[in-house]
């Protein structure tokens, strides 16, 4: 710090900051130095940088209040500096380090806490906008750290809303929001009159005001925050949708109101005249308050905003408010429906999603449905599918509405045949939700006639299937409906029930004993027995110790078979059953491989036995990876056991290699590696070890001192005995377990026409797949293309290719680029999806508690070399391609 050049001193200060950031460095020692230099420093930049360094030091020493107090004092001293940069940093420092603890702190400190707020509050009026922003941010920071802000700040913050600078206004909006959440019920006076209102209402009005701010950044901010102000009274809320229309001083009804009225009076198609929106009653000119009315029409403005960012924020806010208030949901429906016609696709999509979220609270009117359905013709697939989802859960009020929806959906189907699945699903829900509305439509839909037999429709027609799906689902809860069916309808039912069982529900059909008996209508009672069964079979397995080896093997085999069958029958338990079955399978393999009989045979027979054992070891390894990464909901207890199993497999591998290889050299390396792994296992799962009494690892760790010193051949011998003696660990079942699955919808693999392209160039193959229960698909899911020559290509889809239509579900729509040298004739390539894993990640996941797992993943950028291996988790699909030689 003796340097004369300010820039050098600046650099030193910043270096100190970086240094204190590095772990293991104790920053206390340089703190005093830094504070001392601070007092002598003249250059503003260096001052600011020094304060920054102090900030870092302060955050590094969270448990040392006296240091913090001292730093805060230093910062307060420098608040009077003339440079905005220094003042900025001071405020930041106070915000981050200012004392917040109330209960623990002494009287003096709580005094200081108050002071901190006052000090920051004073800087709300600083001349520099950057300092003002920093002051508000510091205040917010204090709030985040748990300090209860004083209500007195509210009026100050309100003044800041009219600031000249957008960053100040933006921060002020946030501060007001925070305050309104802190003191929702306290009363504030309205300045112009004697009335008083709740603070949250006042704040709501103010933030609404900001929705028409000059800067769009502020508008977005305000619109977003509006959504989270749920305590606001409904009276205020509803005003946000009403601009208080008036023409020529007279109140006018909104078009929405008019539409509603026309609808209820039944003269919908009548044209309107020029005077129709003529004003109704005279209103008192004094009462109309054009802008101070605050909340008035904030959402109308927000939804009409020029920037789509604001519109999206407004739609989101509407969604959140509507979810908490059914009456508001009813009112905002019109506006959301209008947003379906927005010119930006993202906004349309967002509003459709919003509508779906609030659809429980609302019933669509016919005219609204009309607008909604018009969007079905949209050329964007996302929009259409979102709309199908929406229709799945909407309530329609009339049978005409249902008919309209069906007609539009069929139109959609002919226009975009690829939407087939999604439309069927949509109709399924539509049918099951509105059985009584479908009932009167049945004859028309099936085109049956009371007297004449009508021709039988084509069974493969997707449109016809769509109609049937609607009717059958409605018939499920409407027993009178099947009476209207004609003969072929019943036949088609049987066919569809088999081929599209997920869409067609079991029906109780008259005169069809077989059907009604085979399909019991209630599935729920079944669940408990099967769950019981699962547990019972596991109990049985865990108690096998006293059985002879042969018995154990048989029991395991049976149980695995049972479990697999159970998984097929009960989709809810599939994950659980598969998981346990896999585990038992591993165990079975292990037992088989370790059968004493085989190990004792003479050397010449080693070969066969070795092959068996190493294959088993390999398979166990593979299965353990699957268990660890393919199931969502695996907890750390399971992870331990899986790792344990893997360790056993590795031990087995070691033994096998020891027996087959002659030299000692490679063994050394392997042993060391194995011991390292045991070590790391111990480190990772130290907390879980007590649960693992009598297990392989437990014994191994007892022998550890001996293992480390002994020769490889001895190690192998020890391993062999421990492995054989170790007991089988119980696998505790987690609450929820789902197996990651993927289903490639496109390409279908049925095409006989090869995809022709010129060799050397690329061809794009559209891949469309649904993924279920995949965590972080953007990082893990890959597409693999296998060429007939054994060449494999791994493709990483773009993060944007993944859509998230529902919890636990993802959809991958991407393009895979293929290329190859020329072939003489068309051949098939295989496309499949892989789940990439990385055991480093798994270690991270085990060290950190489960809740932060996803965060730690985000922290680790998914790098190419981070992938350790992959698990195929979808059925491969064959695509017929034909690279032609290039023409010269």
């Amino acid at each position, binding site marked *: 710090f003796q340097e004369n050049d300010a820039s050098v001193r600046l650099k030193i200060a910043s270096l100190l900051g970086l240094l204190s950031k590095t772990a293991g460095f104790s920053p206390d020692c340089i703190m005093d130095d830094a504070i001392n230099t601070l007092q002598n420093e003249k250059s503003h930049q260096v001052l600011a940088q020094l304060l920054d360094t102090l900030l870092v030091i302060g955050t590094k020493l969270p448990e040392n209040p006296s240091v913090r107090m001292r730093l805060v004092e230093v910062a307060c001293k420098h608040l*009077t500096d*003339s440079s905005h940069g220094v003042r900025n940093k001071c405020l930041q420092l106070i915000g981050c380090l200012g004392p917040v603890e109330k209960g623990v702190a002494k009287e003096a400190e709580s005094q200081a806490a108050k002071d901190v707020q006052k000090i920051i509050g004073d800087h709300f*009026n*600083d*001349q*520099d906008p950057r300092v003002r922003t920093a002051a508000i941010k510091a205040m917010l920071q204090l709030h985040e750290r748990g300090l209860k802000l004083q209500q007195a700040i509210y009026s100050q913050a309100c003044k800041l809303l009219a600031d*000249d600078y957008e960053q100040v206004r933006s921060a002020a909006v946030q501060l007001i929001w925070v305050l309104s959440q802190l003191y929702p019920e306290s009363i504030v006076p309205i300045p112009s009159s004697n009335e008083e209102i709740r603070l949250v209402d006042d704040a709501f009005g103010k933030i609404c005001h900001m929705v*028409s701010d*000059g800067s769009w950044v502020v508008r977005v901010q305000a619109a977003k925050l509006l959504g989270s102000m749920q305590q606001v009274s409904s009276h205020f809320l509803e005003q946000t949708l009403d*601009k*208080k*229309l*008036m*023409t*020529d*001083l007279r109140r*006018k009804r*909104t*078009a*929405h109101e008019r539409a509603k009225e026309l609808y209820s009076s039944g003269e919908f*198609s009548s*044209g*309107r*005249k*020029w*005077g129709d929106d003529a004003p109704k009653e005279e209103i008192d*000119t004094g009462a*109309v*308050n*054009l*802008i*101070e009315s605050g909340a008035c*029409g904030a959402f*109308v403005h927000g*939804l*009409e*905003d*020029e*920037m*789509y960012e604001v519109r999206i924020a407004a739609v989101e806010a509407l969604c959140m408010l509507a979810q908490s208030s059914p009456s508001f949901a009813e009112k905002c429906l019109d*506006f959301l429906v*209008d*947003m379906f*016609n927005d*010119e*930006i696709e993202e906004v349309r999509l967002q509003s459709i999603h919003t509508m779906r979220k609030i659809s429980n609270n609302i019933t669509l009117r016919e005219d609204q449905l009309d*607008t909604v359905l*018009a969007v079905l*013709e*949209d*050329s964007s697939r996302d929009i259409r599918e979102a709309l199908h989802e929406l229709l799945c859960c909407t309530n329609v009020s009339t049978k005409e509405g249902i008919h309209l929806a069906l007609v539009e959906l069929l139109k959609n189907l002919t226009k975009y045949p690829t939407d087939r699945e999604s439309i069927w699903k949509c109709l399924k829900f539509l049918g099951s939700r509105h059985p009584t509305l479908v009932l009167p439509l049945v004859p028309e839909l099936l085109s049956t006639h009371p007297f004449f037999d009508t021709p039988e429709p084509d069974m493969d027609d997707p449109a016809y299937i769509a109609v049937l799906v609607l009717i059958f689902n409605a018939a499920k809860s409407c027993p009178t409906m099947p009476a209207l069916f004609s003969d072929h309808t019943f036949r088609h039912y049987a066919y569809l029930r088999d081929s599209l069982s997920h869409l067609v529900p079991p029906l109780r059909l008259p005169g069809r004993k077989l059907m009604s008996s085979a399909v019991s209508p209630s599935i729920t009672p079944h669940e408990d027995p099967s769950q019981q069964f699962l547990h019972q079979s596991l109990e049985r397995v865990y108690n096998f110790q006293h059985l002879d080896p042969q018995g154990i093997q048989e029991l395991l085999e049976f149980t695995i078979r049972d479990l697999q069958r159970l998984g097929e029958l009960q989709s809810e338990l599939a994950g659980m059953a598969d998981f346990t079955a896999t585990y038992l399978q591993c165990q079975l393999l292990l037992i088989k491989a370790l059968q004493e009989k085989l190990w004792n045979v003479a050397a010449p027979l080693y070969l066969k036995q070795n092959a068996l054992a190493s294959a088993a070891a390999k398979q166990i390894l593979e299965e353990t990876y699957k268990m660890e990464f393919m199931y969502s909901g695996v907890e750390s207890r399971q992870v331990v056991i899986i790792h344990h199993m893997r360790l056993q497999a590795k031990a087995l591998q070691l033994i096998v290699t020891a027996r087959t290889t002659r030299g000692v050299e490679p063994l050394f390396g392997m042993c060391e590696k194995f011991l390292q792994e045991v070590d790391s296992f111990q480190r990772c799962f130290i907390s879980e070890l007590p649960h693992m009494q009598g297990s392989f690892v437990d014994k191994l760790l007892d022998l550890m001192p001996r293992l480390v010193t002994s020769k490889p051949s001895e190690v192998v011998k020890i391993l062999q005995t421990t492995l054989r003696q170790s007991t089988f660990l119980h696998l505790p079942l987690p609450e929820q377990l789902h197996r990651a699955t993927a289903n490639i919808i496109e390409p279908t693999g049925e095409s006989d026409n090869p995809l022709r392209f010129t060799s050397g160039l690329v061809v794009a193959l559209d891949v469309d797949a649904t993924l279920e229960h995949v965590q972080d698909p953007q990082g893990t899911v890959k597409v693999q293309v296998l060429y007939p020559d054994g060449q494999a290509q791994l493709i990483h889809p773009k993060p944007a290719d993944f859509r998230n239509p529902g919890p636990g579900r993802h959809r991958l729509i991407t393009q895979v680029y293929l290329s190859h040298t020329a072939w003489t004739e068309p051949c098939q390539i295989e496309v499949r999806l892989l789940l990439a894993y990385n055991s480093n990640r798994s270690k991270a996941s085990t060290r950190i508690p489960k809740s932060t797992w996803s965060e730690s993943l985000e922290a680790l950028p998914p790098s190419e070399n981070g992938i350790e291996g992959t698990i195929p988790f979808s059925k491969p699909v064959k695509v017929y391609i034909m690279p032609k030689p290039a023409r010269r």
Partner: protein
Amino acid sequence: VSLVLCWCPGAGQDVGRSCILVSIAGKNVMLDCGMHMGYNDDRRFPDFSYITQNGRLTDFLDCVIISHFHLDHRGALPYFSEMVGYDGPIYMTHPTKAICPILLEDYRKITVDKKGETNFFTSQMIKDCMKKVVAVHLHQTVQVDEELEIKAYYAGHVLGAAMFQIKVGCESVVYTGDYNMTPDRHLGAAWIDKCRPDLLISESTYATTIRDSKRCRERDFLKKVHETVERGGKVLIPVFALGRAQELCILLETFWERMNLKAPIYFSTGLTEKANHYYKLFITWTNQKIRKTFVQRNMFEFKHIKAFDRAFADNPGPMVVFATPGMLHAGQSLQIFRKWAGNEKNMVIMPGYCVQGTVGHKILSGQRKLEMEGRQILEVKMQVEYMSFSAHADAKGIMQLIRQAEPRNVLLVHGEAKKMEFLKQKIEQEFHVSCYMPANGETTTILTNPCIPVDISLGLLKRETAIGPLPDAKKPKLMHGTLLMKDNSFRLVSPEQALKELGLAEHQLRFTCRVHIQDPRKEHETVLRVYNHLKGILKDYSVQHLPDGSITVESILIQATAHSEDQGTKVLLVSWTYQDEELGSYLTSLLKKGLPQSTP
């Protein structure tokens, strides 16, 4: 105290020829140069002779600013610059400059060639006039001369519409022209920063209306058109060639695209094609959506909209036709209207305001039988719809703009008197600023409080700011110095320097004041009491009791003597120099209040 004078030859309480003359700090600026569509004689142009009283316009006006290309805002420009004679600069935005001559030429053709008027400007005059135009960019500050500068802000309304800030020194005026605060399908919303002008001149066409959500209107419009076309009817939409026409075209075009409709849409030919060309070019002046997507596809390259031919009107089957002019008072739209009026399947949609006396106004007010030229009676059977797609700001929008700009005064123009009166009240009540609404030809004078910039030497500034608390943006700060007015410039210098520069000797100025106090005690006791009293109050100052019986507070001297006649009255002599005036006068007033009765 300075004046902003505002004289409205045309645009007072009237929708029609916009023309405002602003005189600000000695600079004269003309804002817009419009004409009235309703008149066909001299009244259609503003009366320019009044401005100069037969002097030369060029000498009188510093510049002319045109806000946008509508005829009522720049229709009289060639008449003004060529026939009356003005050679100074004319400022307008780039799109306005591009589109202006086309519209002028078109208008000239209609008046001269069709109606056969003679006393009118020629094509050459339009060209000459356009040569005088200087184009400006948004937010570009243009120095008209040393003192006068102007700056354009985005105004929505039509392509290239702008609001202008005119600034001389620290006095400024913002003229909004026509503007729109709600964005639409092809234009964004007007925006202005917090420039705090002395005067905001705002249009007020919709002073008393708060409009419904635009989405409702759009949906209504599309629904009506769609229904009519599906019925097999024809839809006539009379529009002006530029502005709303493009908006509706985009609306219909996207709708046709989405719904995959086949019925043809026509647009009457001629200047529209040229104009559409400019819309394609000036993408930066449109809204976010068009700006973002034009790389893939320019929204103004219409797929479904084709040029109209007169023969098409008799074609069978449904169609949608945009035809000019917008009020059905003449031209193609009227011809088509006459052809289609008889069929109840057809529909006419009026997308905007219609002036009284036009066919449009008549049918909108419900007249079903129209008397046409030649005593024909036309029975209107077709449906008549009105739909406001006007791109003017409504009352809420106007208030919003005022809130954004925070002007000190507001002047409303371009609206109906009764409605403006209402808005005026609202503005005054809401923002506590004075609001004016001059009639045609009336002059409004607004007093401003101009700030005069003064140069200060850095040393003095630093010295003065170091004293007292930190400077605060919201509070003025008191500084001591000498104001030198020399060579037509103002400078604030330290007293010593001023003395040196002016060659004056320094004089000491001392104030003395006698304060009588009723106190029967001895002199030195009185002094002691005064001393204790002052010491108790003035804690921050050094108060000393000198051995010779006097008190000093900083450099102020206080002596006490007994009154010559009345021993019970003591005379306190307070003396201070000019520099300590503040403290001195405070002390005197303090002493005049007397001493506290009980002395400690």
